[in-house]
């Protein structure tokens, strides 16, 4: 590829806020730069821009520290101080070695005696791996049982409770504000100006100029806090208390009949459903439908009674019916019952602003002000025209960031946030909070289509069964999500959203009545570095020494592939080919007015001996005798997301092994045929020239509201009757097996969540390790770095050069006065000690940090990755613990640790 200057269109998906579109400038065969793809400036929500990390792609391509050819380990001993003794081998030998191991599994059985698959695969980087995996997922589909639940931090350290509860309540894998139509945001640590990509940041900027008021509530002043109207410092892990305080103010200090959206509560939620003495809905004995109290007819009627005009939201009523408990238990009831909304009001009646102040350190007056500002901006009763449809307009949103929306307290925060939206009707309507995509529900490509009628007037939910007949007593993979976490569902994404840290924890000390956690016979890892990205990296590394065979797709040497047996340098961003879905609504704040597909393609000859992952997948399929199944998987769209049309692969014997370009040509054609209803068929060459193909996507499809109304469905809020039943059943199942170690998690299944002393859960870790909580007076937190999130950016000097300009990189941030009180000056080397570990870093003294907080950005602590190992960046993961006590009912934890910091 030499000659004059070319500009080659590709996409960048180095974070989940993509893909974004760019052009690579290639001069005389050398890629010399990137630029926004102005061809799509009118289509892309941020005018076709790409973020700082896309400008690192050129250095990523030519990084001299790349793994330059397949490598085989020659030193059988594994350890940090053991040189792997890499020996360069051919691709033929490398894939032959891997196929030999895989075929041995096929010969002995795909699943071992414990019930766990013998093959495990871990993809890092959350949702971005599929944009680079080529057709590797089709190989896995052809393979059979694979354990994808050995975590690298990607599932349990994400917005985990938001993912699981968000999909449950409103098909919101992630939750975003409808920023262009929103006037007031309460942001609890949501750091979208670092994490929401160019589309999010562009929307935020536009909204700020328009006058959006953004209240940033967080322990340290983040990048997003910089642009906020106001910063409200809050004690770590007390967000639920403030949210409960907001509910109190709205429900007890205002006339909720005037300030809230009563019609929304009555018709779009379960607020009117009557709750009977056992805590379950009162139901009609015949239809088993939940009952509500009809104020006009003064008797209970089914929630969907067409004559119902005035359901009661308050009061106590004497009524008869049945309650449906766990495992089909039924109770005939003739007793006092109350609407769920009345229980909600009672429930929050002790969460006063003064109570919240004592816990959160946010003044009671501020709690009241925030609640009243929220109400005053909600505009209950207002409407707006969207695509010719009249919809409610509720320009208020509550957003949650990481650590707020995962781990203990995550459920409480997600519930309170969603109830706050429901109270004013700001759920899934213009201006309010919206889901972005679904990953647990199906179809993944369109969350609106995932809305289907279920029981009790709510959406159908794909929960893992907890009844005696169908509950999975023996975990099918090592993280056991089908056994422990009903909300994790069972989609292809569920393993990654399972308690993926538990395999590391249970390796040598399986809990009672739980199958022994074994090492997979073969572990394939891709774009993942759990020795850095997991909690308690020391534990992870100790385990890595014992994996029998690890094949690592490898960019550079890193802390995890140091322990691998085989390094496979796959073609990276600008060297390989893939078509990927783009547009519509997706993750973070991807809200487009178009939807389509974009191509990533090789822009120049690779500087190393790498191979396209699609070609690797195809060859592995052939070497494992799986080519027909692999081609069938491609025909049905496994791995590519696009079922083929017209041009199918012939799977008759002997099937022909297609090259990557042939695969993607067929995918391009199927994708365009699919988008245009069969009218347009465009092949790979067209995409190589043009980069992407779009069709319009209606704005009205951002909102669930019209679909819910059309299907007569309600949001399962505020009362969590179903989860109460599920939790009760799960507890019974576990107890029937003698499992008591999940009891703390079972306590989370409450119909109305309560405040518990969440910070104390972390403080008590010290006691388990023979230390006193007061020895660790500070909280160590982490925060997103836009420059360093995902990708392989830690190994790129150019990103280090610009990241250094964003304060917080390459050190640990401390409040200035705290630092000085500890005798620490700016730049001093400090030791950070937790009950389970120590690390070091340079002190960065700042004013925008609470006095009881320290902040280490992102995830570092590298010792093997070139460039990164010289950054001297401390990492929370080095001092955090993998601990069942820190694991919530969804199976997640949170990034915070109690620490002591002292000058070295």
């Amino acid at each position, binding site marked *: 590829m030499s000659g004059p200057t070319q500009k080659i269109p590709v996409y960048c998906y180095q974070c989940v806020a993509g893909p974004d579109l760019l052009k690579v400038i290639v001069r005389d065969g050398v890629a010399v730069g990137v630029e926004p793809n102005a061809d799509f400036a009118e289509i892309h929500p941020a005018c076709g821009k790409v973020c*700082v990390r896309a400008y690192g792609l050129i250095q990523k*391509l030519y990084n001299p520290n790349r793994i330059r050819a397949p490598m085989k380990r020659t030193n059988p001993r594994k350890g940090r101080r053991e040189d792997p003794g890499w020996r360069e081998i051919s691709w033929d030998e490398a894939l032959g070695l891997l196929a030999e191991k895989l075929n041995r599994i096929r010969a002995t059985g795909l699943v071992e005696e414990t019930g766990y698959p013998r093959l495990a695969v871990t993809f890092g980087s959350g949702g971005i791996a599929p944009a680079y995996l080529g057709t590797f997922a089709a190989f896995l589909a052809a393979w059979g049982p694979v354990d994808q639940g050995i975590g690298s931090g990607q599932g349990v350290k994400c917005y985990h409770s938001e993912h699981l509860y968000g999909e449950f309540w409103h098909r919101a894998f992630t939750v975003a504000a409808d920023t262009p139509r929103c006037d007031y945001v309460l942001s609890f640590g949501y750091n979208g100006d670092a994490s929401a990509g160019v589309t999010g940041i562009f929307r935020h*900027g536009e909204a700020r100029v328009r006058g959006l008021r953004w209240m940033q509530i967080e322990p340290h002043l983040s990048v997003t806090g910089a642009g906020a109207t106001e910063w409200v410092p809050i004690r770590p892990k007390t967000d639920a208390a403030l949210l409960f305080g907001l509910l109190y103010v709205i429900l007890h200090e205002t006339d909720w009949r005037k300030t809230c959206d009563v019609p929304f509560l009555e018709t779009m939620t379960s607020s009117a459903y009557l709750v009977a003495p056992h805590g379950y809905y009162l139901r009609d004995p015949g239809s088993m439908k939940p009952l509500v109290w009809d104020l006009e007819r003064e008797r209970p009627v089914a929630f969907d009674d067409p004559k119902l005009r005035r359901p009661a939201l308050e009061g106590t009523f004497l009524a008869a019916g049945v309650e449906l408990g766990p495992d089909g238990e039924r109770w005939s009831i003739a007793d006092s019952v109350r609407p769920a909304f009345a229980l909600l009001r009672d429930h929050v009646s002790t969460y006063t602003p003064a109570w919240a102040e004592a816990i959160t350190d946010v003044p009671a007056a501020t709690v009241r002000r925030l609640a009243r500002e929220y109400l005053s901006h909600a505009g209950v009763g207002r409407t707006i025209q969207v695509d010719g449809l009249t919809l409610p307009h509720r320009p208020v949103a509550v957003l949650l960031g990481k650590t707020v929306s995962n781990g203990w307290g995550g459920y409480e925060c997600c519930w309170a946030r969603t109830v706050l939206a429901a109270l004013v009707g700001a759920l899934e309507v213009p201006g309010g909070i919206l889901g972005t995509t679904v990953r647990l529900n199906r179809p993944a490509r369109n969350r609106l289509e995932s809305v289907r009628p279920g029981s009790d007037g709510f959406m159908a939910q794909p929960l893992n069964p907890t009844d005696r007949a169908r509950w999975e007593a023996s975990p099918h993979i090592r993280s056991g999500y089908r056994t422990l976490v009903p909300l994790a569902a069972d989609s292809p994404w569920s393993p990654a959203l399972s308690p993926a840290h538990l395999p590391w924890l249970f390796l040598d000390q399986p809990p009672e009545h739980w199958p022994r956690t074994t090492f997979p016979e073969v572990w394939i890892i891709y774009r993942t570095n759990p020795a850095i990205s997991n909690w308690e990296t020391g534990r992870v590394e100790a385990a890595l020494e014992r994996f029998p065979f690890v094949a690592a797709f490898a960019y550079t040497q890193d802390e995890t592939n140091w322990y691998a047996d085989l390094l496979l340098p796959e073609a990276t961003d600008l060297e390989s080919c893939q078509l990927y879905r783009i547009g519509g609504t997706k993750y973070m704040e991807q809200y487009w007015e178009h939807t389509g597909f974009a191509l990533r393609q090789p822009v120049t000859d690779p500087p190393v001996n790498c191979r396209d992952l699609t070609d690797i997948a195809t060859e592995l399929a052939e070497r494992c005798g799986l080519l027909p199944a692999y081609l069938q998987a491609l025909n049905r769209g496994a791995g590519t997301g696009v079922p083929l049309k017209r041009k199918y692969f012939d799977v008759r014997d002997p099937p022909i092994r297609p090259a990557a370009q042939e695969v993607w040509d067929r995918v391009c054609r199927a994708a365009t045929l699919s988008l245009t209803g069969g009218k347009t068929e465009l092949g790979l060459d067209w995409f190589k020239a043009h980069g992407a193909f779009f069709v319009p996507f209606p704005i009205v499809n951002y909102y669930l509201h019209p679909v819910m109304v059309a299907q007569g469905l309600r949001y399962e809020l505020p009362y969590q009757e179903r989860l109460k039943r599920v939790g009760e059943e799960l507890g019974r199942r576990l107890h029937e097996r003698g499992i008591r170690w999940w009891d703390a998690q079972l306590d989370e299944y409450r119909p109305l969540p309560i405040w518990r002393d969440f910070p104390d859960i972390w403080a008590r870790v010290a006691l388990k390790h023979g230390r006193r909580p007061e020895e660790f007076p500070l909280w160590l937190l982490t925060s997103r770095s836009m420059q360093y999130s995902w990708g392989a950016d830690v190994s790129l000097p150019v990103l280090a050069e610009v990241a250094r300009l964003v304060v917080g990189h390459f050190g640990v941030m401390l409040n200035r006065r705290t630092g000085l009180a500890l005798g620490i000056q700016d730049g001093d080397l400090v030791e950070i000690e937790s009950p389970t570990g120590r690390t070091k870093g340079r002190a960065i003294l700042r004013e925008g940090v609470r006095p009881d907080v320290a902040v280490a950005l992102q995830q570092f602590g590298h010792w093997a990755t070139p460039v990164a190992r010289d950054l001297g960046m401390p990492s929370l993961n080095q001092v955090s613990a993998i601990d069942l006590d820190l694991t919530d009912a969804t199976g997640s934890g949170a990034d915070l640790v109690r620490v002591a910091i002292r000058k070295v």
Partner: protein
Amino acid sequence: MRWGMVIDLVRCVGCQTCTIACKQENGLPAGVLWRFVADSEVGEYPDVRRLFLPMQCMHCVEPPCVPVCPTGASQQREDGIVWVEYDRCVGCGYCAMACPYRARHLIKDASWHFPGQPTPAEQATAQPARRGVMTKCTFCVDRVDRGIARELRPGVDPEATPMCAVACIAGAIIFGDLDDAESPACKLIKERGAVPLMPELGTNPSVYYVTE
């Protein structure tokens, strides 16, 4: 005609995309940045604000860097762009001393991002003429001039606009003719009350900031 820039601090998120795009566009070696976004704080806890402030050459109407140059290398064009004629520059640093915005950078010698050899991209974009001389933001003068020659509109058409403005993901950097009252840059100054940095110095910068 007076080329200038308006930077909207309400939009800026300090992401450094402009910083790295400038570096790429101008083939700058490791350690040299012609522009950057300062990450600063104002006030004391808890009454503190975090402020991102993009910094670069202000292309002053009265540039203090020009008259102090002993060789005449430091010059100003009629359209306001301040630039350095590398062949005449001896790297003495007087201009750097005179510039109150610290916008002048001496490139001592070749320096690559990775130890040893340059990457193929660094090799292809290296600028040997800049070694040993003072360098600075040029408002991407080559893009502007090439664009005008192609009858493109600087500040409107990306190919004729400085790369920092093209790259900015927040739409915070607007380039345009400050003598044209109808240019987006001029309108922004008027409508949102943009101000230059340190006007009291009398340099009359061509870079304005929108602060609220």
